[in-house]
């Protein structure tokens, strides 16, 4: 009944439904195959004395078949559960396959090693979180892009942000910090200059000739402005110094002014000229 040689002849040269010929070789799909290769020694059908290892949900079983049970396909395979420990599993294999061909035992042990490694790897991977790869539905993407574009147009972002900022400004969130006071500062400077301009017209020519020292000049302009205030009598005092000064002081100053520039003169001789012009300015005012 069981003729291994005949079966092998049929399998190899006629037809076997487990055989798969691919470019790298001829393989076997039979789950009982030890090596997975289609040849005489590892064919589970053509060998009446055969053993293998199979995996049932992470538990390994040693499967053995002998020719004595060949007529009872129901319990053809004898199954032994292998312990989880690799060493102990090897011992069990040795015990059960004591008198079996050495080649088969060797192959089974190789398979056990491979499968243990695989089991370890599987458990590791199962613990690891993996990124889920999602599809990107083209239709939805396009629709979203379209709606986004329209929403952006409807948002009028720059305008809304500007409006929001202005609302905040009005609510006084930026009080005392803001740069508007800076503009006011420039305005006050402007007004000062405007008032000073009347006298500056002549002086400016002189400045082209002489002036490099910006700081000094600024001081002068301030002085001029001050004088102007006092002569035009009781304008609203904007300059910092003005509040202290009285009309009396001014007169005293105007007398003593010639002394003060004299002190400056010792430091920098240039200023002497400017002082003369200030006098000239005074003259002008007198004519006014």
């Amino acid at each position: 009944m069981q003729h291994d040689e005949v079966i092998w002849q049929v399998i190899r040269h006629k037809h076997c439904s487990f055989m798969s010929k691919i470019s790298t070789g001829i393989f076997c799909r039979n789950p009982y195959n030890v090596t997975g290769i289609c040849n005489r020694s590892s064919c589970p059908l053509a060998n009446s004395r055969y053993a293998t290892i199979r995996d049932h949900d992470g538990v390994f079983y040693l499967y053995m078949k002998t020719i004595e049970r060949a007529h009872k396909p129901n319990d053809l395979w004898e199954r032994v559960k292998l312990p989880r420990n690799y060493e102990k599993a090897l011992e069990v294999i040795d015990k059960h396959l004591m008198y079996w061909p050495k080649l088969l035992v060797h192959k089974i042990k190789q398979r056990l090693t491979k499968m243990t490694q695989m089991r370890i790897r599987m458990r590791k991977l199962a613990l690891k979180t993996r990124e889920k790869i999602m599809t990107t539905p083209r239709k939805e993407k396009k629709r979203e892009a379209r709606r986004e574009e329209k929403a952006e147009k409807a948002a009028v972002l720059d305008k809304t942000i500007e409006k929001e900022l202005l609302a905040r400004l009005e609510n006084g969130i930026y009080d005392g910090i803001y740069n508007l006071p800076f503009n006011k500062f420039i305005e006050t400077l402007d007004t000062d200059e405007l008032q000073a301009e009347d006298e500056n017209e002549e002086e400016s020519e002189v400045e082209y000739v002489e002036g490099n020292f910006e700081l000094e000049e600024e001081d002068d302009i301030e002085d001029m402005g001050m004088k102007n205030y006092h002569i035009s009598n009781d304008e609203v005092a904007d300059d910092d110094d003005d509040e202290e000064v009285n009309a009396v002081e001014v007169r005293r100053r105007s007398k003593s002014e010639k002394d003060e520039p004299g002190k400056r003169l010792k430091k920098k001789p240039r200023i002497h000229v400017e002082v003369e012009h200030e006098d000239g300015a005074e003259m002008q005012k007198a004519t006014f």
Partner: protein
Amino acid sequence: MGGKRKKGESEGMEGDNDSKNNNKKMKQKSEMLPSSIKNKEKRSAVHAKLKHQKKLEKRKKLKARDASEKRALELGEEPAPKQIPRTIENTREADETVCMPDDEELFVGNDADEFSSILKRDRIPKILITTCRFNSTRGPAFIAELLSVIPNAHYYKRGTYDLKKIVEYANNKEFTSIIVVHTNRREPDALLIIGLPDGPTAHFKLSSLVLRKDIKNHGNPTGHMPELVLNNFTTRLGHRIGRLIQALFPQDPNFRGRRVVTFHNQRDFIFFRHHRYIFETKESKQSDSKGKKAKDAKGDSIAKEKVVARLQECGPRFTLKLVSLQHGTFDTKGGEYEWVHKPEMDTSRRRFFL
């Protein structure tokens, strides 16, 4: 010009819909529908004729309306009120969760939520920024700009760590939020914002990213604390997202820096912009420079000046769209979702959730 006229037409159409419908019905009774004519040549001719008539009618109506308006102005009467164009915003489907400013429940809820400790300045926001596993080209550039936008943000390399491990680590280091930039095909395409220690996890789709160097005339931000503009976060969900975003930024903006970060929600798209701004006074058209001088000479400074804000864009520009909001920190398997975007939510274009 064309644009203007179009607008006018659409306005006109709304008002006169009824009469037009009547006309149509009359016509349909008297004439045959062009689609019922079998001969193609004939059909197209009839159709063209109908279309032309419609156009003429529309023009006539427009003219009549303009004329009546003019007449009303001449007579000194009130012209008919201008029709307000229908937009998606003002025809939005009613949402019962839209927050009212006097919603007691909302305020109590705000006090109890995960961000209240940050927003009350008990905790200083500290942000951890990281990426997905595989990250290249635009991802790092985007992160560099995010770092310049969000103060007190720190970039950590992702390595091969699980996100849950990173959350744990960040908790130990007392970070207040984690931002994960997800890149796909070398382009950032998603943003995950996780509030810590037990704040929600929001997953956004990121699109239309423009980096600083690609923006024309961009400015460079200063190191000041930016101020935040959150626009249009109206519903409960929107409110929550707004607070989540708010908790990323310090609550004490330095107004001297004149730096503003905007999250503007429009139709569920959250537009991110980053600007520097300046307020300027601009004279209105009537007051010339001469007039101003005269005023100055008078000593009065009642100038007809308008304060305008000028903006300069700096920093990245991108759009977010909420995909899901999860209660608790990141957990895809056992996580409880507060809100998930589902395809059946897209069935109406007038339904918004933020």
